[in-house]
């Protein structure tokens, strides 16, 4: 199974969510500015990275974790991926898409726009980091919810295998 955390430009919220999922950030402790900025790919992606799934690592259950930016084409991108799965004869149930954009605040959005789109990094990066710190609780709960759901699915599947 693969978990894809998706956001606008895969520079901030999806990177932080994947870091929480992979245990690189503690869900119960707000990260410092430097901890956020030291995350691989945090505030470091470019416009042409949008649409490319990026492998972030494997979690403790061996599931592959990716980040993906869909820009302003989220419904189109989602439809395209579901359709591709159908064409290839794969199941979309094996690819869990988690939207992280809903968890972040306006400070992160404005900071992300300043830093990535306008290249005003000295202003944008502190703003986005402060915004992410402010919405860290929501991001952590989202990831915890995803992990709980995945554990439940795993248990159900192993139970089914046992019964077969």
């Amino acid at each position, binding site marked *: 199974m693969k978990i894809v955390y998706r956001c606008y430009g895969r520079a901030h919220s999806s990177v932080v969510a994947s870091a929480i999922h992979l245990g690189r950030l503690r869900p119960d402790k707000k990260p410092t500015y430097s901890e956020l900025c030291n995350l691989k790919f945090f505030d470091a992606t470019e416009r042409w990275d949008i*649409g490319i799934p990026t492998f972030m690592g494997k979690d403790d259950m061996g599931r592959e974790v*990716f980040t993906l930016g*869909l820009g302003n084409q989220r419904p*189109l991108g989602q*439809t*395209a*991926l579901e*359709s591709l799965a159908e064409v*290839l004869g*794969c199941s979309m149930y094996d690819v869990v898409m988690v939207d992280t954009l809903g968890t972040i605040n306006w400070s992160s959005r404005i900071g992300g726009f300043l830093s990535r789109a306008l290249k005003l990094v000295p202003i944008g990066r502190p703003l986005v980091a402060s915004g992410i710190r402010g919405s860290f609780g929501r991001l952590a709960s989202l990831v915890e919810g995803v992990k709980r759901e995945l554990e439940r699915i795993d248990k159900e599947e192993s139970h089914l295998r046992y019964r077969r």
Partner: protein
Amino acid sequence: MHIVYHCRDGLINSPLAAGIHLGLLDPAHVPSEGELRALPFYGRSNHVRGRLYPAGTDEKGNNVYTLGRSNAAPFVIKLLSTAVPALFDRDDVLVFFDCDVPGGGLLSSIKCLGRNRKMSYGWAVKLASCEYFRLVQVVQNVRTGLYS
């Protein structure tokens, strides 16, 4: 190999190109309204943008699809091409061919009026026929590039 003909709305140009590729339309003459209506994937009203519609399999065994991708061609191509190995662990090759001709955006919009019955279907077909031979050229280039 999966051959994907894509255009802005996925309703007219890409189904025409797929029809030419699959030999369902004669490249030598502009199809009549009846021939167009007979194309199973032409101008469908429940069309969803971003969805790959299977048009058939060509003589080399390659699957042919049509795709409407709004104005986000580079994004969709990049997403689908990179997702195949990364998310689905497959080595299938997808090749994409743009069927939008220069200045086709306006024509495409007008043709959509035809689809929505706000304009006569016949006029929409006439407008489509303006682009037919350019599409024939696109498909011939594709086939030459892939099969010769």
